[in-house]
């Protein structure tokens, strides 16, 4: 990650369940170690469970501003986005991380901000790939999802992140086994793989790795 120069706006999109939220939060924390002002916005209006807001305390402690629907994690299943999100793409006074909803359906909401992002032209549109997800199990299927998302939001991808994992049983070998598939997706799309993201508990000796600190969940059983 040391050689990576961040753009003003970084967007994470991809197949739902590919790990966009975890990466967006961890990327924002990494970004905060490089630059002064970082804001993160949750643009997911499709899935009401497991949101950026789950990490509100971590982000707050790090001094990162979280922009999230006031209805996230509540009983209101309302597809609304807060007005502050416009500030991120119009005022341009801080670095911005945008956590986009999954698939093309989740990416439609990004469309309303796309003209400002394209006009400023200082963004990285990142496709998050997990080749252990059944509907994006190889480069060809992942490419199909990429094109669907681009069609929905009006912004073309500029980079790929390989976040292949099997949840809490992932081993370093499982990650390494997907590197060639990520390269294949890179060849097919003509886009660089800017980093591989890996749970910090897993030791992968590869270049360009973003270590992820993941939240523990109350239902993760810790057998002795």
């Amino acid at each position, binding site marked *: 990650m040391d050689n990576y120069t961040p753009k003003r706006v970084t967007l994470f999109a991809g197949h739902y369940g590919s790990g966009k939220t975890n990466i967006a939060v961890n990327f924002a924390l990494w970004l905060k170690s490089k630059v002064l002002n970082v804001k993160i916005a949750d643009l997911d209006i499709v899935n*009401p469970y497991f949101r950026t807001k789950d990490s509100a305390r971590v982000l707050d402690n790090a001094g990162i501003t979280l922009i999230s629907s006031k209805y996230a994690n509540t009983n209101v299943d309302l597809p609304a986005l807060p007005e502050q999100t416009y500030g991120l793409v119009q005022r341009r006074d801080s670095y911005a991380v945008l956590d986009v909803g999954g698939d093309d359906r989740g990416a439609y909401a990004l469309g309303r901000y796309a003209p400002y992002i394209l006009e400023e032209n200082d963004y990285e549109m990142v496709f998050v790939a997990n080749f252990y997800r059944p509907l994006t199990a190889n480069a060809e299927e992942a490419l199909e999802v990429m094109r669907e998302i681009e069609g929905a939001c009006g912004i073309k991808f500029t980079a790929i992140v390989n976040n292949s994992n*099997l949840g809490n*049983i992932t081993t370093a070998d*499982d990650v390494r086994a997907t590197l060639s598939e990520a390269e294949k997706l890179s060849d097919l799309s003509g886009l660089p793989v800017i980093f591989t993201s890996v749970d910090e508990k897993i030791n992968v000796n590869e270049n360009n790795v973003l270590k992820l600190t993941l939240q523990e969940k109350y239902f993760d059983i810790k057998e002795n």
Partner: protein
Amino acid sequence: MKDKVLMKGNEAIAEAAIKAGCRHYFGYPITPQTEIAAYMAKRMPKIGGTFLQAESEIAAINMVYGVAACGLRVMTSSSSPGVSLKQEGISYIAGADLPALIVNVQRGGPGLGGIQPSQSDYFQATKGGGHCDYHLIVLAPASVQEMADLTIKGFDLADKYRVPTMLLSDGTLGQMMEPVELPDVTPVKVEKPWAVTGTKNEREHNIVNSLYLKPEILEKTNIERYERYALIEKEEVMYEEFMMDDAEYCVVAYGIASRVSKNAVLKARAEGVKVGLIRPITLWPFPADALKKASDKVKAFVTVELSMGQMIEDVRLAIECKKPVVLCNRTGGMIPTPEEVLESIINLAKEVK
């Protein structure tokens, strides 16, 4: 790469149904189970199956009734308020002795309630949510792997006994992601001589119906069906015991509550309280014998539920009220923390020595 994939519980249900030979799915979107319909919409056209978003839950369950009558594996899914709408159709399917799989990814209620997880449809699922005398086989998964495995099992049981089966899950299990291995299944081939498949002028018409004009015949049909239920109660009970060998206290919990409870049991053991857990996997038939056996050796029970206390009644019945049973619960979309369950166990151990 491993044979495992990373899936949401809802996706695991959908893919497992396809593996089990289900080629007909009828549904209507509702959080937190919409991924099942979305997955089916994507996959069914690719494998020559039928995905249909019905105009309502009521329409969807009656489409299930129709396909089940044709002898084909069929599924519908919804969440609590939507499953209430399906109840009339479910009673008809039970009354016509048809196999089908109905999935309920429960959310908080009553009424419109909320979209967060709950287990408060236990009564509805196990006691007959629709009208009159009938049972569903009710399966309660506790992991994404079990969402897949019990979906396949549900189709097999439904076919074997000609009884509609319900997979009773909750919003957390539906939404959470875990590694899962989807087995290659050869669907159990069950002869269905009763199915309406066209006579080809070679046999008498089959009639699928739940209407009986003569009460004597209806009574006889009901009694025969209950003989089948008795067989299911004898043959198909499933449960898991966790640290029960030397247990002095017993936690009873199913589904997501059992996972929180397992963490609490481990914490209580670390504090020197000998506690174990019984996890019903079939909610109907209920593992009454296992609980009765446990009641001979443990001092008291605590049931952990995401409801105001429903399964607790079956626990008391199973142990014939021989030992105290207390409730540890959250409701309305809230989930008890392992610490809350631990506190319940510790308090129980202090009160019942």
